[in-house]
């Protein structure tokens, strides 16, 4: 009988971690639906970027208020995880505060967790006020209604509950230590819970205190496991994906768009005076699938672009810098990322439902999620790319979709078609004769 809590704990832990693993495997499978792209060069630079941008939060602090608040929550998250380790060992072995023999070090650890927990609570309150009372514009865009809005708040509520449970657990524990209850070793420092929570429970009996301490302990670890599993369904995956996302980000200048190799082949053939257009295809060459130009659905994007979509935490810094969005156009780079993820999830569910094969559902990213009006509003100015704190590149998706519209569907706006035929006919986007190109010298 005495092992029941240990067994329950093990089941809870295994259950929580397994379901999370299952979803992460799904996530990796979905990301791998994307086309291949090689981002393994210049490992030093990549590590440096990851260390600076993800670990060091250098792009977060470009907006000092949000950046500072975020750093508190981020450090709190990282450090309080040490506490989770103790909880897991205690839970599995049936010990209580297994790290207590560390003595002074333990006091410092628990004491600093408490201070961090308080700071996190304050930061979370500030975040909540920013989202719900001050109504900062980027949290109010058209795409931020319904689930994305409540998702943002849910995360904050989760964190408040977890921090309060942690402090309640400590307060009850401390009180029990003072009452010299059995099993409650004297350990830890409680600079926050001792004044914040303790007065509320001061007069309770030892039995009630034990119930409170135990409940807070169990709910805390259960809460952490629920939070872990909530990640996959929320915008909050960035706490994990920010690291690979900054590592695999593009290293070439922002202004450099990829050159499509499939096009290069065709153009070279067109420009080669010796090429025989009627020649039978080389039988020795592998029969290649006809390349599709650009992207109309998520499978036409590369895996980094798909990972970008899962990494996006919908902060909206991109959209708040987008010149098209600032002037009332429909384009919102954040929506491009959210749509890509939503469609990718839909494709993933389709694959799950059809025994591992994608069955055409008559839908695609283009049109059903992202409209041409949004795509044509982009000035390719790279403001969104520059603004993203975790190196997401919405512009590359916009460009791939424009490629599809232009090269597969010839569906550019008329004025752009005129511009392109001018380039084709007279080598300039305007209808001037190429032979007049040097006239400015004489004018």
């Amino acid at each position, binding site marked *: 009988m005495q092992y029941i809590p240990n067994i329950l704990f093990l089941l809870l832990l295994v259950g929580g971690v397994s379901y999370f693993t299952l979803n992460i495997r799904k996530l990796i499978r979905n990301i791998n639906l994307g086309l291949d792209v090689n981002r393994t060069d210049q490992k030093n630079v990549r590590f440096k970027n990851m260390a600076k941008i993800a670990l060091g939060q250098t792009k977060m602090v470009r907006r000092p208020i949000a950046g500072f608040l975020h750093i508190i929550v981020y450090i709190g998250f990282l450090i309080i995880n040490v506490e989770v380790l103790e909880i897991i060992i205690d839970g599995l072995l049936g010990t209580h505060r297994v790290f207590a023999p560390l003595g002074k070090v333990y006091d410092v650890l628990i004491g600093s967790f408490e201070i961090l927990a308080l700071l996190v609570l304050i930061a979370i309150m500030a975040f909540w006020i920013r989202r719900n009372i001050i109504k900062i514009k980027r949290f109010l865009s058209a795409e931020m209604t319904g689930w994305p809005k409540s998702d943002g708040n849910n995360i904050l509520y989760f964190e408040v509950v977890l921090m309060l449970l942690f402090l309640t657990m400590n307060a009850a524990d401390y009180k029990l230590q003072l009452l010299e209850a059995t099993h409650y070793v004297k350990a830890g420092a409680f600079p926050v819970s001792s004044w914040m929570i303790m007065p509320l429970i001061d007069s309770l009996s030892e039995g009630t205190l034990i119930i409170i301490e135990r409940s807070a302990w169990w709910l805390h670890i259960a809460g952490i496991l629920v939070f872990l599993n909530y990640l996959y369904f929320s915008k909050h995956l960035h706490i994990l994906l920010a690291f690979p996302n900054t590592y695999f980000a593009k290293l070439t200048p922002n202004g450099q768009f990829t050159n499509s190799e499939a096009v290069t082949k065709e153009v070279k053939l067109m420009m080669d005076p010796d090429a025989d257009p009627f020649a039978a295809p080389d039988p020795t060459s592998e029969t290649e699938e006809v390349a599709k130009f650009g992207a109309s659905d998520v499978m036409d994007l590369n895996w980094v672009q798909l990972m970008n979509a899962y990494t996006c935490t919908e902060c909206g810094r991109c959209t708040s810098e987008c010149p098209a969005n600032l002037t009332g156009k429909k384009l919102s780079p954040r929506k491009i990322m959210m749509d890509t993820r939503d469609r990718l999830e839909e494709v993933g569910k389709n694959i799950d439902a059809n025994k591992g094969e994608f069955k055409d559902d008559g839908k695609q990213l283009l049109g059903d999620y992202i409209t041409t009006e949004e795509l044509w509003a982009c000035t390719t100015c*790279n403001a969104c790319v520059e603004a993203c704190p975790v190196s997401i590149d919405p512009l590359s998706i916009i460009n791939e979709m424009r490629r599809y519209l232009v090269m597969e569907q010839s569906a550019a706006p008329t004025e752009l078609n005129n511009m392109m035929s001018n380039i084709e006919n007279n080598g*300039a986007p305007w209808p001037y004769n190429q032979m007049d190109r040097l006239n400015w010298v004489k004018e």
Partner: protein
Amino acid sequence: MSRVIKVPTMAQYIADKKQPEVLLWVGCAGSFDDRAKKITKAFVKLLHNARVDFAVLGTEEGCTGDPAKRVGNEFLFQMQAMANIELMNAYDIKKVVTACPHCFNTLKNEYPQLGGNYEVVHHTQFLKSLLDDGRLKVEGGKFKGKRITYHDPCYLGRANNIYEAPRELLKKLEVALIEMKKNKRNGLCCGAGGSQMFKESEKGDKDINILRTEQALERKPAIITTGCPFCNTMMADGVKNEEKETLVKVMDIAEMIVNAQDL
């Protein structure tokens, strides 16, 4: 302004079995747009002044393909690129300078993979190097102490991280450089990029160039300066829209240097 300026072509250079120090890539705007032609001429004046041995491709030059690439027409882009590369490689071009950040970005970043490897610099970088080498003298003159704001072209700034060369030149002109709230990597686009120059904008509540011009005018400058012919047009249109064209001029940095000393 109708003084005839000497602008040799690569064809002439090759005929004389000579190689210029640098190829001046004029670009479509610089060749055909009335406003941008003035920028080209100003820059040419500075090249002459610094005794730079340069040539242009002239009628052999064709669009880099940038506007086509930004709207997704990779075919047209690569056809333009390959034709230009074939020509420039035949002329054995080593170094290219251009006053258009769009040409600059495309030539510098997107041509190498297609076989076009050149040292490509923007005219503000080139002018800065002429200055550093003592070949060009830039002094305050007319603009000394004037309130000037600089608009960062996206394809020079964010796209290629060039923020300082143009500002160094302005410093030499001894202007009172007043930055807009949104500057350098946070600079707002003028609204022309991504081939928006060639189409009507999508439905919204304002044109981008108006918003950017408002940001510039907020700082009460005498001159809005920039380093891109498209930005120049957009900002000038914005200023006109606010009916401030008599008070606020929009100029390229090369023009400012020329005007400062009445070259």
